[in-house]
């Protein structure tokens, strides 16, 4: 049995490297892609192009604009009329627009009257940027207001009797990239493995070589194992390359144990690959495999927590998310990277991954067996 | 050579990296011939046909097909030829009729002519009753006939067939050759590669390819005449030992084995019939049957290849 599997593995590798484009594509493609993506996310949501309509032209309004610039979230440029603001936002040139009203300084310094109003318009069509802009704008306005108030009336100093001291753990500088890049890495490695594996059996079926394999004494289990090794080898190499890149190039901290991470990553790869093999067992042609894999991968990306933490999703989605190994893996992966955690922290996730793996593999072998009988 | 040539190659060569598939091939085909390309696997038959069909560029030399150069003027060639690849290359998910219809479109066969021709080809290939069946669901022989029908849709002047009958049962094979003969009688030039020697005998001329070049190129009769000496068919009780014994004999030029049968090329068949019996009996091998016979393409082929290999080895 071992020999048969070994022969199959060799055949897979020969086929892979025979195609001169395939190997570099599979190995370098995702790596370059991660490089680009990580690069783009490491910048985070800041320096949003911001149209400013300053109708007051006073020291106070300029002070507010300086505070805005200092937040590094806004990159202001001036416009002369409200119509221009509409135009800039409609065309997508500005994502935020501030309007400072006439009389801003006067109202601000007169503590007995009403507070001056600053209008901030965000482009709701781009909700991620809009939300950040809205939250940061609140902070900028509040702290600038307090600063002015304290300066103008020393008595107001006691108005803010609670001092909040902040301590951030695990990702001390709160770098967006420390969260995003591991997600992207996990996703890309998973997607590549699943994609390569999903083609594996479908390809043999389409080209008619599966028939040939089926008449040999090779059993379904052996076929599945033989096919897996190559995809896992690919996925794992990919993972190590990407991990190296992420740690060296993007300064993502690695606080946990390398051996632990390596072992768990291999386990996880095996499970992720099961997904691909399952698709492969169902699909009759490579086209079908592609289309199914696309849908699965897109759903996977949702549960990677890349865009939104899974905890904020509707209840039903949270339940579904548990069926995707990626969700559990990212908890493990981030815990090791950022928190330096050990198995005692994430044993539940590991158990879930192992359980899913067992279920997926059993399903695949059963599916292959049934298809053969048809 | 009285008539002009329809295919002519000059030192045609094609290499794939270090492997030379076709090496300085000089080939001449006259209009209306059935030209057979024979040779062992890997001799370069498929590459030659692809080069002639203008779907592959040579790495050396040149070829003219129907008066056009295959590198600089491939499109006029493609309008005048039909090409049937070795692998089944029709659309499996399209029906017989849809496949024919598609190629009729591609070759711009239109109107009543197209309807008439499709009917005639379906009839000709005996596929009329299968016209709505998907090509993938046809038997191997029917697939080949459909592929041939598709290459005939535009009444080409030349048809290239790359091992068209490989993997086809004898009855279908016979039928297929019936169709080819009809085409030949219509005056179409056929270039066909085949591993079967009986098919080679049906050709007007055969070219024997070995390691990318032509060893011989002549009519089947003359090719067969190229063998040395006379041929004896022999059924000994122990073919293996008999072969060893006879191969050492000075009178024997060459021994070939066909199952239980040995075929011996000897200088003189008449005298050999006498001494073979005794020579074998001396080693305890009995002669079950023995008779003089005429060489077939197969013996000629093996003899020529072995001769070539021997001359290269020395």
């Amino acid at each position, binding site marked *: 049995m071992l020999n048969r599997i070994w022969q199959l593995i060799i055949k897979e590798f020969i086929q892979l490297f025979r195609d001169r484009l395939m190997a570099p594509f599979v190995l370098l493609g995702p790596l370059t892609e991660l490089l680009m993506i990580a690069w783009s996310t490491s910048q985070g949501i800041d320096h949003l192009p911001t149209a400013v309509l300053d109708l007051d032209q006073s020291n106070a309004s300029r002070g507010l604009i300086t505070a805005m610039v200092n937040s590094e979230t806004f990159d202001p440029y001036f416009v002369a009329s409200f119509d221009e603001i509409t135009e800039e936002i409609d065309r997508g040139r500005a994502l935020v627009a501030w309007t400072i009203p006439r009389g801003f300084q006067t109202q601000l310094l007169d503590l007995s009257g009403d507070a001056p109003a600053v209008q901030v318009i965000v482009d709701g069509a781009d909700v991620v940027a*809009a939300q950040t802009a809205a939250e940061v704008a609140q902070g900028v306005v509040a702290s600038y207001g307090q600063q002015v108030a304290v300066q103008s009336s020393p008595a107001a100093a006691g108005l803010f009797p609670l001092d909040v001291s902040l301590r951030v753990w695990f990702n001390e500088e709160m770098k967006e990239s420390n969260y995003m890049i591991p997600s992207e890495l996990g996703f890309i490695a998973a997607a590549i493995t699943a994609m390569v594996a999903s083609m594996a059996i479908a390809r043999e079926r389409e080209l008619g070589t599966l028939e040939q394999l089926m008449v040999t004494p090779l059993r379904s289990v052996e076929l599945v194992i033989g096919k897996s090794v190559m995809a896992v080898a690919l996925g794992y190499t990919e993972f190590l390359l990407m991990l190296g890149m992420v740690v060296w190039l993007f300064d993502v901290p690695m606080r946990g144990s390398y051996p632990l991470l390596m072992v768990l990553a291999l386990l996880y790869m095996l499970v992720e690959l099961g997904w691909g093999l399952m698709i492969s067992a169902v699909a009759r042609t490579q086209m079908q495999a592609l289309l199914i894999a696309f849908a699965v991968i897109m759903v996977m990306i949702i549960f990677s927590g890349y865009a939104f933490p899974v905890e904020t999703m509707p209840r039903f989605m949270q339940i579904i998310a548990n069926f995707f190994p990626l969700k559990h893996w990212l908890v493990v992966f981030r815990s090791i990277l950022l928190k330096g955690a050990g198995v005692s922290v994430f044993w539940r996730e590991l158990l879930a991954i192992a359980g899913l793996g067992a279920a997926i593999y059993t399903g695949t072998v059963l599916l292959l067996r049934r298809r053969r009988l048809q | 050579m009285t008539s002009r040539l329809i295919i002519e190659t000059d030192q045609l060569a094609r290499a794939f990296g270090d492997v030379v598939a076709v090496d300085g091939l000089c080939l001449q085909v006259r209009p209306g011939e059935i030209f057979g390309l024979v040779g062992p696997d890997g001799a370069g038959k498929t590459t030659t046909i692809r080069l002639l069909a203008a779907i592959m560029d040579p790495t050396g030399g040149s070829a003219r097909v129907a008066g056009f150069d295959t590198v600089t003027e491939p499109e006029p060639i493609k309008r005048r030829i039909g090409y049937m690849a070795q692998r089944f290359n029709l659309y499996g998910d399209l029906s017989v009729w849809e496949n024919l219809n598609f190629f009729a479109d591609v070759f711009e066969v239109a109107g009543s002519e197209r309807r008439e021709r499709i009917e005639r080809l379906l009839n000709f290939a005996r596929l009329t009753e299968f016209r709505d069946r998907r090509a993938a669901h046809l038997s191997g022989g029917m697939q080949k006939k459909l592929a041939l029908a598709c290459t005939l849709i535009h009444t080409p002047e030349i048809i290239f067939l790359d091992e068209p009958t490989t993997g086809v049962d004898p009855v279908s094979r016979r039928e297929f050759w019936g169709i080819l003969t009809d085409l030949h009688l219509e005056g179409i030039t056929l270039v066909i590669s085949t591993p079967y020697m009986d098919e080679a005998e049906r050709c007007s001329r055969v070219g024997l390819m070995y390691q990318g070049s032509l060893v011989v190129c002549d009519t089947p009769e003359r090719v067969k005449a190229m063998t040395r000496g006379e041929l004896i068919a022999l059924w000994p009780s122990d073919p293996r030992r008999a072969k060893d014994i006879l191969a050492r004999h000075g009178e024997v030029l060459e021994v070939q084995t066909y199952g239980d049968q040995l075929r011996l090329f000897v200088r003189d068949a008449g005298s050999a019939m006498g001494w073979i019996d005794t020579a074998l009996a001396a080693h305890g091998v009995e002669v079950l049957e023995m008779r003089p016979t005429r060489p077939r393409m197969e013996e000629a082929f093996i003899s020529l290849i072995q001769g070539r290999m021997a001359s290269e080895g020395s």
Partner: protein
Amino acid sequence: MNWRRVLSIMRKEWWHITRDRASFVLLMLSPVLVLVTMGYAFSVDIKDVKIGVLDQDLSQLSRAYLAQLSSSGALRLEALPASLSEVEQLLMRGQVKAVVVIPRGFERDLKAGRTGAVQVVVDGTDPSTAGHAIRHIGSHTEHFAAQQVGDRLARLGISLNRLEPIELRLRAWYNPSLRYTVSMIPALVGIVLSVPAMAASLALARERELGTLEGLIATPIGRTELIAGKLVPYMLAGLLSVPLCVATAVYGYNLDFHGNLWLYLALSAVFLFATMSIALFISIFAKSQQVAIMASMIIFLFSGFFMSGLLIPFALMGPLLKLEAFMFPTTHFVIISRGIFVKGVGLGELQGYSIALVGIGVVFMALTVLMFKKKL
């Protein structure tokens, strides 16, 4: 160019698409399916962040502060740890994202008019969630503090509403309540619409792999005809799923379609043309379907999701990334789709992006036709 031949390839291709019923259904429905799931996942817009409070003061005021913290939907009080080591456990396991530590003497300090101190410990792993927690804890704290000092304000002759020295009037245009679905679904259309392009690149690679291309190039069919014949059916299949996507968004997720539907369809067609050109360009080099799939997945799926401006606005990318994103059709289509769908703008505002799409399509199509050789 012979139109009959183009038509014949198109018809054949259409047969291929529709004959394999499973693939056809997947091709038409997978965009919608993905849209539905992703849309649903994004449909909760309030992030309720789980927090813990370590109350070391255990006074009346600390309990009032605690009540203030859990008074809105934005923060959910999940745990009341009793010690600092428990706080560490909670954060390590990710059970809470932040813990507020109310020190001993909290009430005493406040009552005495001294500045009290609370400490917030945050799990910075996910900075956006962490930031959300910090901001909400901060504003609750300010609010609580203001209530405590109301009497002192009166003495100073400052009205309570001046606690916020500047009033911020925040308005989100096009999407007043900043719903994620409003912004995400139109952008996702750009990603799911690359499915037909991926299928097209596979279609050409399949002919090569199965050997049917060999038969095809031995015929007088022109390469332009062949490419055009491949392109159109898949574009058509893609165009058919556009109304499905719009319908899903409008009826499934209650989005308003603000722009002109015909313009949307027309620009979708231009977008499909651009993606198909790239896809076919890839498949010239792909000897097998596997290579075609890997390449188109890397280009359409990864770039599509991460670099198209779906999450990080195009305007924020660095010059080099901008260049890559600029060559990538989805980037432009995300802006166009949001523009028409959400903002209701017309061709005037979108002409730059539309021209870019046409340019990308034409350039890659030209390269494809030039580099496709009718040879083995």
